[in-house]
């Protein structure tokens, strides 16, 4: 919910925004208010070489991938999706996942996107961070709730993210109900919380409807907090 709302708020501030959804569930698509495609858009962007390894088809790079395969989302956000898992699991969408992985690894070096804001959404937990699914990012927004499980997960992700290369880690406290929640997070992570998003029934209501928070409750306290996050990101 935070990634989709943040992407749209950055776009409303005049920024070109590319949203990257590497989750195999359609959370970012829904939080952006975009329509999930019937099939993974990148399905025909990859092929197997003679050695059996996957590769991008000739002529497909980040620019072509966004031009040809991105989904239009509200406020002008462009969304590239790895692909959603169906009843038969990963094998049927493997070409799309392979293409996605290769495109995002070229993004960092692509001059065409140097001025873009890129907002990636990783699945819960440390797995994709450990396997290098955010090569384009120089900042990790570490979203953490004031629960024991979330604290342990956030600390683990922060440690793993810093192992690969220097990245800026920004702690974002979510579902905060009391002042002590923020203090607990800061104490455990040993880093300051830079943005506090309050526990907000509007978020659950939007999720129940499958609607974007920004469309369902544009004046909600959580939206105001994510707007502060957008401003903080743009300041640096």
């Amino acid at each position: 919910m935070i990634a989709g709302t943040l992407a749209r708020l950055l776009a409303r501030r005049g920024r070109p925004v590319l949203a990257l959804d590497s989750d195999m569930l359609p959370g970012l698509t829904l939080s952006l208010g975009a329509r999930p495609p019937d099939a993974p858009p990148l399905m025909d962007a990859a092929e197997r070489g003679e050695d059996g390894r996957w590769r991008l088809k000739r002529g497909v790079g980040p620019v072509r991938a966004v031009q040809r395969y991105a989904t239009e989302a509200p406020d002008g956000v462009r969304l590239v999706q790895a692909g959603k898992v169906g009843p038969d699991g990963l094998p049927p969408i493997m070409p799309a996942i392979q293409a996605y992985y290769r495109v995002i690894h070229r993004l960092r070096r692509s001059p065409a996107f140097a001025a873009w804001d890129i907002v990636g959404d990783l699945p819960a937990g440390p797995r994709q961070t450990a396997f290098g699914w955010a090569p384009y990012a120089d900042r990790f927004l570490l979203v953490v709730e004031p629960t024991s499980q979330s604290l342990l997960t956030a600390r683990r992700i922060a440690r793993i993210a810093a192992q690969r290369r220097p990245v800026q880690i920004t702690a974002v406290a979510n579902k905060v109900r009391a002042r002590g929640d923020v203090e607990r997070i800061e104490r455990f992570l040993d880093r300051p919380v830079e943005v506090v998003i309050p526990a907000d029934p509007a978020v659950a209501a939007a999720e129940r409807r499958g609607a974007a928070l920004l469309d369902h409750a544009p004046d909600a306290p959580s939206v105001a907090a994510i707007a502060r996050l957008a401003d903080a990101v743009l300041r640096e």
Partner: protein
Amino acid sequence: MKVVVAGKGGAGKTTVAGTLARLLARDGAQVLALDCDANPMLGVSLGAGMERTELLVGVRQGLDAGETAHEPTVEGMMETFGTDAPDGVRLVVASRIDKVDPGCP
């Protein structure tokens, strides 16, 4: 009885699994709680505590480290890699991701 708890992240899988395991144990069942999440948090839901959960060694990591020969039996794995959780539940962590490029978990 063998059950697996599945669902989307944040849906409450681990809370359900941990609570269910303890309630079954309280009813007198022998319970093995198997944490198959690469970000294992079942220890927290079982009541083993945050720091103890963080220190649990996954079966995969234990074998990779060469600390023990491969355990051919479930009983051996439970004994070598398991830890006692409240109400007599035995907790085993399958694998955990702690570093970059961890290989196939």
